[in-house]
């Protein structure tokens, strides 16, 4: 009933939105399966999103106006829903990326000393 994640590698809280936005931003409009496949590929199979995690996240991003989903045709001639970031989504991505970099830097310094 609840949308609990069962990905092989735990998706760090709040990072799923960032990953989805980044994927769509760099690869253009994709359907849900393609997004999941891309993330799996990038993580060398460590990140396996089940549908119960991915699709509610997509819906949430769409409800927030960061994505737009439209029905289209795949290369194998199937009807699928393609997601693309809105301009607000792209701005959000840029901000989140900066914040992530800063935070990653801080964590890295903290964990591995002043070097």
């Amino acid at each position, binding site marked *: *009933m*609840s*949308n609990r994640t*069962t990905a092989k590698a735990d998706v760090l809280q709040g990072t799923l939105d960032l990953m989805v936005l980044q994927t769509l931003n760099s690869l253009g409009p994709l*359907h*849900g*399966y393609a997004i*999941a*496949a891309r993330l799996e590929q990038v993580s060398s199979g460590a990140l*396996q999103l*089940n*549908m*119960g*995690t991915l*699709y*509610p996240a997509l*819906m*949430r991003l*769409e*409800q*927030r*106006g*960061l994505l737009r989903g439209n029905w289209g045709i795949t290369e194998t001639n*199937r*009807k*699928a*829903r393609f997601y693309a970031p809105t301009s607000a989504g792209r701005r*959000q991505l840029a*901000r989140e990326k900066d914040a992530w970099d800063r935070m990653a830097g801080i964590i890295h310094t903290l964990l591995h000393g002043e070097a």
Partner: protein
Amino acid sequence: MRQGDRMRVVREWLHRLAGTLLRRRCDTDLEAELQLHLEMATEDARSRGLEPADAVRAAQVKTGPASQAMDALRDQRGLPWLDDLARDVNHGLRTLRRTPVFTAVALLTLALGIGANTAIFSIVNGVLLRPLDYPKPAQLMFVTTEFPELGLTRNPLSVQEYLEFRQINQSFAAIGAYRTTGGAYATGEVNLTAGGRPLRVRSISVDAGLLSTLGVQPAQGRLFTAEETSRAGGLAPPLAIISYELWQSVFGGQPLVGQTVDVDGRRHEIVGIMPSGADVMDNHTAIWLPLGLPAAIRQNRGFHIMNVVGRLKDGVTPHAAQTELNALLENWDERTGSSSHVPTSRPAGAADHTLRIEPVQDAIVGDARRSIWIMQVAVGFFLLIACANLANLLMARAESRRREFAVRAALGASRSRLLRQTMTEGVMLCVAGGMLGLWLARVAVQALIRAYPTSVPRLSEINIDLFVLLFAFGVSLATGVLFGLAPAAQGRLRDLATALKVGGGRAADGGGRHHIRRALVVVEVALAVMLVIGAGLLIRTVYNLTSVDAGFDRSRLVTFSMTLAEPYDPDTRGPAYQRLVDKLRVAPGVLGAAVMSGLPPNRSPEAIPTRIENYTASDGSAVEIVDYYQFVMGDYFETMGVPIVAGRSFEPADAASPGRGVIVNETLANRVWKGRNPIGQRVRPNLSAAIGFGDDSWHTVIGVAKDVKQGGVEKKTGTELYVSLDQLAMAAPTMNVVLRTILPPAALSRTLERLVREVDPAVPIVRLRDMESVFAESIRRPRLLAQLLGAFAGLALLLAAVGTYGVLSYMATERRREIGIRIALGAGRSSVLALVVKQGLQLTIIGVVVGLAGALELNRLIASVLFGVQPTDPTTLAAVIMTITLVAAGACWLPAWRASRLDPNVVLKGD
């Protein structure tokens, strides 16, 4: 950036709301998306070389169950709780429609319970809680005298005391006074002639200080000036301010300021119109007159007529003001230079009095406060009983729905979901019941105001305002949660699996669940016991009040009031009343007629200092404070049926004889002459203070009359002096006529009107009624309280009986097998009957004991409204216990009888 995020979240919730309400992105749409995902995953797996079946399985493992994803998507799409609520409401409506009897009973009890609570709370709110409609009402204090020895409280001040207090105190920013008794406008009522129609309206005489103290502003015209309300001669100028209500009802809202009206036969100029609702001390004032104080009244310290209202300075608390007053009382005589009859901090003698201040609101509400709170507690109890009963009903119903819940739980409904569903039903019932109750409360309060316009102070201010609405809503909701929770609380939802296993829904784990139902019965019985005891005590009180010997025979006695205002003077009034009495005496159906100045039992004590020959009062002074003077004309004692216990009554010959006689009551005779013969002793009635005319000459006591309850049947009898107006050949403006007659008031009214018209066509007859209703009126509050409490106690008893019956029936049904076996093994019908009845009576007895303990706790609340009966009155308690036990036995008997008729064959095969 933060704000942007917040906007995004708001946007998400708006979408979700839209998702719920508009059903955006339908299920098939979502399913198609998931389906595609699964297919693609399967193809991928196959392309990695898996067999078709394995590929499907692998894809399913990887993507997770589609049903869960759908649930998550649905939750994300809309607002899950809103969806659930809509579904619960729908489901609840269907369930309630399926069981119309349950629904009707539940709604009715709830409407009654919530309605009663709302009605009483609207009284609590309007009378006790809502501040008075003056600027800064908390600063207004009522200043009164108290005569502890005479048992008088909230008594007026003398004029001198009032002026002195105004002079020497530091706590008050403004002080004013009014009077509604004594003097020219004798009764707080005046004859008002408007357009040829004589009217009797409530009046008040005020000084300018009072109006500025209250802070009222006229709606039109002006108020009185200080000069107008303190004329040296004591005769008030003929000016009047009328109430907004009178202006609207009698004068139709026409321009009026500057015109004149007849008030008690004298032309008065209307200088102003008060704003709507303006009043003093709940006097229901229709006309405001300037205060006039004749020198005799102004100088006489024994004449207590000034009702004093003060406004505290900013920042001064009532407590600080009382502290200052206490200090003043320590040496009032030194501060003011007056010595006789001054207020003191330590009153000891009969004439000694002290001063007290209290908030005006408390003074207005007075003794009604206690009664109102008692009612609120009573209806609160009633609602609790209703709740317990409904919880019981709901639990019984949940029992039959065990399977339904078990199936739904097995299908994946969470425990909290099921709980929410039962709660939704409870709250729905309560909201519907609450709305019905609100309507009921409105109707009830209006009916109450119509039926008992004077039973509660500030009655006109009672209405259903936002606060009351909130209260009703809160009570409904709390009720719904309370009894909606009950079925869940018994642990039903914990053991859902067992319900499925045992199949029929008859659970094996009965014990624990029954505890709650038994407890509910005990609570119901206990609360009912408390209510019935309260009602019983009040009914005893009313009975005691009605059976008090008031000192005269009030059967077949009819009375009315009338006023002979100007141009009459004392000397012309006497003969006019005399003519009326002569006419009345020979009227058809009339056995006797008399006229008296004060109407028992509704008089307020006058406390008139009276000289008595060769007598020194307990405080060393030569005067005795006499509580009541009764001025009478005609065959007073014969007509009223007041026995003369010694000496003789007034006789027609007395009028001609030069010596004047008075009659005293037993209490006065015992107080003054202490067992010696009072006949032939001499007193000097203070006629000028008591009635405003006549010379204070010596009178001889010619008789002793039996005590009459002048000031109320529940009060201590005061001292009383009877003066014959036949001898004085004078009369006060307003007198009460009393007739001993074989006819009811209605049949007499035409004759009476004709006879009064023959004496003076401009004089209205006021308050024509029989003496029984005068008495009923004097005990209206305890009577009303007894009636209301009795009604609720009766209903509570009924509910408790229904509750006991329901639980017992249920428990008997649960024990069918056991009882069947007992019967099969040879147990007699009567022993089975006793078995079940015993089970019920045990609960009842526990309830009665708990209820008795609770009633003892509540003693303090009710003790002060009782009369002639102790809160622990054994007779009442025994009667209540008997009643409750009988009712409970009745409630137990039916299920027991049914159990004893069980056919063991049917029962034992049935399972």
